[in-house]
């Protein structure tokens, strides 16, 4: 798993590449935690671009849930961009589909998260 971080219109976009399995989730958690910690109250806007993530296991999903909770606590927002079929069904199975903001285009995501 590789993560590239960029900013766009006040939103921090994490472009993740590769499966998120095993110990990858610890690495991802560290990166996300840093981003949240360095944002001021109400400013944490995180967009996880999963276009190049073919698969995620339950620990990966746990990291996304943890990120959701931390961001909520800081009155920020977190969005999931470009979910593939398998990660989408993972989220459906875990009954988290109504919890996460999901987007299929970056422009749309940025616009929505800045509203």
């Amino acid at each position, binding site marked *: 798993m590789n993560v590239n971080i960029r900013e766009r219109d006040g939103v921090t976009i994490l472009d993740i590449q590769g*499966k998120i*399995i*095993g*110990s990858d989730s610890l690495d991802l958690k560290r990166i996300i935690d840093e981003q949240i910690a360095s944002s001021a109250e109400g400013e944490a806007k995180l967009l996880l671009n999963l276009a190049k993530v073919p*698969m995620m*296991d*339950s*620990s990966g*999903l*746990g*990291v996304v*849930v*943890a990120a*959701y*909770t931390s961001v909520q606590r800081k009155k920020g927002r977190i969005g999931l961009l470009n979910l593939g*079929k*398998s990660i989408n069904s*993972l989220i459906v*199975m*875990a*009954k*988290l589909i109504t*919890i996460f903001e999901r987007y299929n285009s970056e422009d749309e995501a940025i616009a929505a998260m800045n509203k």
Partner: protein
Amino acid sequence: MPEEFVIKLELPSEMQLIYVLDSVVAEIVKEMQFEEDAAEQVNLAVIEAGTNAIRHGNKNNLHKRAYFEFHVSNECLTIVVRDEGEGFDPDDVADPLDPENLLSTGGRGIFLIRVSMDEVTFSDHGRKLTMVKYK
């Protein structure tokens, strides 16, 4: 492909080696020509089972090993995962779909194994997991 055979893999308890397991499963489901959805479900179940064996069973102790057997037949793939830990009670695991657990950061592994595979059986006090996926 021939009628029925067994592939075995044995890993020390090091989470970074989950990628070795992942690649073996990927080749086997490809060779067996599982459909994409089923292939992904098998892949997920094996990763969850391997992670549990290494983390919870063997507690990342490099001297303890995780054992994987892949029984390939024309109709199905049967996977056996064993660890050298203290075991646990698989029926005593919290339901991750219970509203109070929905935002929990863990506890979804066994649930995902059960929904991904067609048959799931724990034995030897949770140290042995047998799971079947039909084609």
